[in-house]
């Protein structure tokens, strides 16, 4: 139990930033460039945590609470997510709802901090973030409903363990639909390319980056690390569906999970290389399609 908790913390605290590095390396490789070093996110974090913070005089405590609550909520949510074939350190009935709304709490504080600056651009970003996440939440929840229908449990560890659903239980097609839907949600929630370009800092077109423009130093570091953890968290959900096999031996499973994570990061980088950002007005279309896919998989299972 203690060891599991330690590994979970190791994955989320130390290993998650490397995902961003792998994504950027993949994009650089496809684009024929050298790209930033694999550990660039760690360098960025180290740099940010050494710096001082600047707070505008118009901001209140909400602005300071934003990054902290945002980071803490993702970290708290991470304890309920099973990584690979391993049960999560914290599992109880209905924890998927608790996890989703912990993420929503973090989002609420990030948006509040953005609004607190009084900048019109940040308000715009906050409005986008909230409206798009309200589109992606149904996709997530239809998926949870489908999985609990398949596995008969209401906890993430139960519904994502490989023996809860299998190829033999007639769930293959619904699970493929669900994996696609959740991958779209993952891209939207982590502001990856079809939805938002993590590289640009142009206020008019951004969602996530525009909300955190006024943060600096360690606060920005917390936001950066929090987004890396969120990528790992949602990525683990998707990967648990995509690879529903269990290997013998705990260490083999961890190794396999690391490989899966690499696969996920390369896939995201590849998607980002071949796609352009969607027009802002087309984003809801894609998210509604994700919800429909998710609902479709639930309907197939309910039949």
């Amino acid at each position, binding site marked *: 139990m203690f060891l599991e908790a330690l590994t979970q913390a190791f994955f989320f605290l130390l290993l998650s930033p490397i995902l961003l590095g792998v994504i950027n390396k993949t994009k650089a490789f496809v684009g024929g460039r050298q790209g930033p070093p694999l550990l660039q996110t760690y360098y960025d974090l180290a740099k940010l945590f050494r710096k001082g913070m600047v707070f505008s005089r118009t901001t209140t405590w909400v602005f300071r609470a934003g990054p902290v609550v945002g980071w803490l909520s993702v970290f708290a949510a991470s304890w309920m997510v099973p990584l690979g074939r391993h049960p999560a350190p914290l599992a109880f009935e209905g924890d998927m709802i608790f996890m989703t709304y912990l993420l929503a709490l973090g989002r609420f504080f990030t948006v509040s901090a953005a609004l607190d600056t009084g900048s019109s651009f940040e308000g715009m970003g906050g409005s986008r973030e909230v409206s798009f996440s309200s589109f992606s939440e149904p996709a997530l929840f239809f998926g949870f409903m489908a999985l609990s229908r398949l596995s008969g449990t209401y906890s993430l560890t139960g519904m994502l363990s490989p023996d809860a659903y299998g190829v033999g239980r007639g769930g293959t*097609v619904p699970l493929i639909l669900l994996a696609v839907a959740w991958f779209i949600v993952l891209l939207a929630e982590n502001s990856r390319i079809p939805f938002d370009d993590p590289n640009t800092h142009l206020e008019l077109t951004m969602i996530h980056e525009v909300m955190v423009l006024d943060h600096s130093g360690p606060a920005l570091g917390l936001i950066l690390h929090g987004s890396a953890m969120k990528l790992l968290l949602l990525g683990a959900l998707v990967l648990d569906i995509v690879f529903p096999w269990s290997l013998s031996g705990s260490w083999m499973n961890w190794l396999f999970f690391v490989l899966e994570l690499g696969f996920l990061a390369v896939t995201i980088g590849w998607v980002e290389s071949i796609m352009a950002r969607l027009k802002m007005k087309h984003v809801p*279309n894609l998210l509604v*399609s994700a919800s*429909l896919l998710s609902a*479709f998989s639930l*309907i197939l299972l309910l039949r």
Partner: protein
Amino acid sequence: MEISVNSLMVLVLLLNFLALGFSQIGTVIRISAFQGVLLAAMPLWLGGDLGGRMLLLCLVTAVIKGALIPGMLFRAMRDVKIRREVEPLLGFIPSLLLGALGLGVGLVFAKSLPMFQGQEKTLILPGSISTILTGFIMLTTRHKAITQVVGFLILENGIYVFGLLLLGTMPELVELGVLLDLFVCIFVLGIILNHIQRAFSSLDSNNLTTLREKP
């Protein structure tokens, strides 16, 4: 067999959603063509003893739905120079949601119909009903005549799926007759498209609602 048929049907249903969600007319035509070819191959997946005539019918269906009709539609598209459906009567998201509702209706409705032995578990009947409803949605909510023709094609695909249930009991002549009807229909619709285009210099079928001559 059941799993593979159901997977194919899920693909067909996903194509329905794609057709409802895209605004580029070329893409929608390609989607309906792909759906037609997929359905033409369906009898091979359903198994059973297929005679040479049945195989020939599958081939003819695939050629007509996958090559001939899309070719005619693409030519019509080139002639009238339109590329995308702008502002349909019902937006793309509402029509997608309506399509999902159609799928739900199909699943519920299919339960209350009598079925042959061994076909209760397949998605064929719900898929057929929801494909027909998708065709209806496209027919009624799109402004451009070409998209309406594609809606008609998807409607016919739904009817074809329904015919799959009666595979082996329905004479091939009926299928061939339906195909001929479809072909003639698209032919006539192509001519109508040209006339609408010549009369109103656009393909918006809303123009047909006013009775008096344009000044």
